[in-house]
């Protein structure tokens, strides 16, 4: 009875409130839009360090997954060829940088 009351109170009446969320919790369409913006800026600047910095709020470990999922979403949702190309170029550049980082002694 007590546990049940606690569960009802904690999940329904006064659940944990999240108002200050992080980009990692954003829905995939919003995440893809952020990636698209960064990719678009990268296509102009060609500065992969700045591009990585812009995406750093997602966490370096999740960056590969984020780019892969965003590209898949963009293709599934029939984004324009230019947008998809920009995301692909960013993904390739990030992969290259990460590979170089891993190969350095």
């Amino acid at each position, binding site marked *: 009875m007590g546990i049940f009351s606690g569960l009802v109170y904690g999940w329904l009446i006064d659940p944990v409130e999240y108002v200050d969320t992080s980009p990692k919790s954003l829905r995939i369409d919003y995440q893809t839009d952020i990636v698209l913006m960064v990719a678009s*800026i990268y296509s102009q600047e060609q500065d992969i360090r700045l591009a990585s910095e812009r995406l750093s709020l997602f966490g370096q470990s999740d960056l590969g997954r984020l780019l892969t999922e965003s590209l898949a979403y963009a293709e599934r949702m029939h984004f*324009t060829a230019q947008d998809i190309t920009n995301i692909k170029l960013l993904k390739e550049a990030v992969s290259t940088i990460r590979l170089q980082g891993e190969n350095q002694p």
Partner: protein
Amino acid sequence: MIRLMGRVILIMMMFTIGVGIGLVITWGVMPVRLVDTAPGTLQKTEKDWYRVLIAEDYLVTADKDRARARLLVLDNNGAWVALSDQVNRRAWNRDVEGDALTKLDSDLSNNVAVIPQPTVNQITPLLSTATNTLSTTLLFTNQVVTPLPIYTLVITSSTTPSPFVLLGSTPACIDGQTPPILEITIVDSLGKPREGIVIVVSSSETTERIITGLKSGIASGVADTIMQPGVKYTITLEGRSSIPEVFMASECRSSSGDTFSGGWSVKIQY
């Protein structure tokens, strides 16, 4: 008597411990999972970061409609105020970011007066069947004797969300378009395209949220998604109460007489 008191105390202690265990589970071990949030819930510093991205992307693409839609997604009400506030706070890391924010603020500020806000609706909808319970009426009256127009703002409000209105739907039979596309145009009561509106397209298998004006290459106020032949899709607008509209891929016939699955072009008044 003492035995009864002891039982009551025991029951109360057990109840309290139970509540405690329940709260440990709900707040600590298995709290409400936080997934699929919207940009509006981000922390203030991360909203600043988001706005910088929007502004820098705008510098590259010069796509004002897209930038506007993104700002509306970030701050549904007060998007322009939030942008100006960030410029005033000089909340950026590099000068180029500040330049981008200032340019976007400047370019959009000229249009603010004519951009309908998400909660604003004209009192007279295009279709007489629509009844808006949350309505703001902006009346423009040009008087002959004075050269300046008189603006009268009348605001009435209620907690019930307004319904949306299906203005029309036509099959989109484009030969060779595979897979078929469900294209949705959102307009306000004046017929102007609305950006940043979240449309929920659901089928028995998936639920997609698409946002007008966010995708490049299509007109402002428009969002689209793909359809699978034979699958029923329901369309609702986030924050609007109305009977969902149901669509299936249309049957089309090509010039050579072959049948193929086509999409739909749907127009909705927000």
